[in-house]
């Protein structure tokens, strides 16, 4: 490892050590909620120290605290603390920050906003289209545009239909479908410059369709948003139209 890389690592280790110390202390404090030295609850005598549910976590978080201090000492001795606040020391890279930030936002919108509420084929199709378009070629504008589409769909679903009781609404399905269609048009308009983009609509439709059908009808497992716009139709026709063909 080059000396410069090591210095960046030690600067990051400085911050990590501080976070780990804070986390260890917090969980050591939370461990104090668990009876350690023979509790007495409602007149029933609890466990001895050696059988307490707190003994192992206590050891783990104490160990983590000690190791965090050792890491902090290593970092300070290697010059990590001195460079901890500098841009170069932390190894800040704006393009990498944009790349990670946009991916993180899209994944958050997908998992927290879309998957629980929106039809799985629709939301996964949108995600696949956005991720391929955003990161094939490494264009920052495309990353941002893709993120806008996915987060807009996710935020709408999350904010408009947050509570579980409202997850069956189809308005967010339609919004996601519209955003997906619009993004697909943009993707296809760029396909001349990036030929790979031509196959994106095909992958975006087929991959989630095959996966959700395999999981629901092949493995007979639960799938997210069973009442979604498209899956509801697939499920209906599978049981009502198709299945009787081979059941009879």
């Amino acid at each position, binding site marked *: 490892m080059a000396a410069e890389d090591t210095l960046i*690592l030690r600067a990051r280790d400085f911050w990590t050590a501080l976070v780990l110390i804070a986390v260890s202390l917090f969980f050591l404090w939370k461990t104090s909620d668990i009876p350690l030295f023979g509790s007495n609850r409602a007149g029933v005598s609890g466990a001895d120290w050696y059988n307490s549910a707190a003994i192992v*976590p206590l050891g*783990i978080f104490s160990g*983590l605290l000690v190791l965090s201090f050792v890491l902090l000492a290593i970092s300070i001795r290697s010059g990590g603390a001195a460079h901890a606040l500098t841009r170069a020391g932390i190894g800040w890279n704006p393009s990498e920050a944009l790349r990670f930030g946009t991916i993180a936002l899209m994944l958050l919108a997908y998992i927290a906003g879309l998957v629980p509420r929106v039809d799985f084929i629709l939301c996964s199709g949108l995600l696949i289209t956005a991720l391929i378009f955003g990161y094939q070629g490494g264009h920052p504008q495309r990353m941002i545009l893709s993120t806008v589409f996915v987060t807009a769909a996710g935020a709408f679903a999350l904010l408009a239909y947050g509570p579980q009781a409202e997850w069956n609404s189809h308005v967010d399905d339609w919004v996601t479908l519209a955003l997906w269609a619009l993004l697909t048009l943009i993707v296809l308009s760029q396909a001349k410059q990036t030929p790979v983009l031509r196959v994106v609509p095909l992958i975006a439709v087929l991959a989630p369709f095959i996966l959700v059908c395999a999981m629901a009808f092949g493995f007979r*497992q639960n799938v997210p948003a069973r009442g979604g716009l498209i899956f509801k139709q697939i499920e209906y026709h599978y049981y009502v139209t198709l299945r009787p063909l081979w059941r009879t």
Partner: protein
Amino acid sequence: MEFILNQLSGFGGAFVALVVDPLTYAYLITSVFLGIAFGALPGLTATLAVTILTGFFGNKIPLDYSLIALLGAYVGAIYGGSYPSILLNIPGTAASAATAMDGYPLAKAGRGGEALGLTTTASFIGTVIGTLALLIFVWVLLLISKNIASPEKALLALFGILLSGTLMSEDLVIKGWIAGLIGLAMAMVGLDPILSEPRYTFGWSYMLSGFQVVPVLMGAFAVPQIIEGLRHTATGTMVALKGRVVPKLGVVRKYLPTIGRSGVIGTGVGALPGVGEDVAGWVSYGVGKTVSKEGDTFGKGSMEGLLSSETANNACIGGALIPLLVLGIPGSPPAAALMGAFKINNVIPGPTIDPEIILRVVAIMVLASFTMFIMGLFTAKIFIRILRIPQTVFLPVVMVLTTIGSFSVGGGINDLYLMLAVGFVAYFMNLMKYPIAPLVIGVILGGLFDETLRRSLLLSDGDLSVFVSRPGAAILLMLNLALVLSQLPLGKRLLARMKRTPA
């Protein structure tokens, strides 16, 4: 002798039962194909292949078929990593990093077909060597492990986490230990295994059952890989495959000593808890460079160099299954994913495992290596085409696969939140050179460690001497202490001085 014959006849029975079942082939061919494809695609790893298939096949089909799918993918993926190493100079998996050193120069010299054919043969022989070791040593260890009680189990689990942390750290060893402790800490969430006392649940009922293994596996292994891989990279110039792939018998015979040696090294390294195929490949490559007559040409296009790493990484699979099946401690990161599959099928690997399962695992391994061998020799061109797919195209599909796989095991959205949270943490840990395997092993072994440690103390009324009064426990305690002390500055200085002192 009678013992070996008994094992062989038991293995024969399991093998025939699998061979006569037509479904075996369906699962085997699909999983080995998927495994090779995962290994061949730079950005996807063997661990990811086993993890994702655990989400799909883990608890949805009978255990036998599930094992066929997972072991087939494991064997295929470790072998598949050799394709981009040889033809693109990009290791498909970490296990094939050493392969690229000699594979690419060989392909550039017009010997790509020969390199690929011999790699396939060596990987096959390596897997069989590892599997034979599994068949023989697993029984010897099982006999010993009958004497293993709670104190030994607790110390073994700790040793597995510490050793994995020590050997898997790229940067400071302390980072491996921290990762292991974070994994152990995650395993403490939920109702404790003895008194059912809630721990760190923050009043959330989902947390009462603790963190589920599959979302943690998906988060730790898949999400960081997806985030890391979603960047534009030039595909690289692929060297055209020249020459026949099917190797000549005489050439194979010439390299048999190298293949045999590397197979034994790979199996041995694999048997160390938590140490993966990449370490096996490099160790075997290093040994090969030292002992081989053509050691000077290693790194410049040596066939022996290529076979040293490729045989060892496949032999490592059988080795990695030994501690998994006998002690319940995964021998490598993909084996940790495999343990997740065992857990969700309510099979507890370790001294109490049903011996029939071990025989079936061995039979599946042999069949999987045969399938890999045949596919590798006769369908190489299909896998070479796969190499052309950019990772920005297949990784989004992997994300969707991961999501539905993780959701279907537990059937809840909370598992997806857990997966994403673990994924982000694991990404930053990767960025700061913290190994992820010790974290996963910590999560998997945490429950066992907690339960057995407290049970030991409970049975001895809190007497700590229970960890030294039993010979097995005393040895394991010494090993744990020696491992920690050897990494302290004083221990390192002592070791260095011992090395300098002539014998």
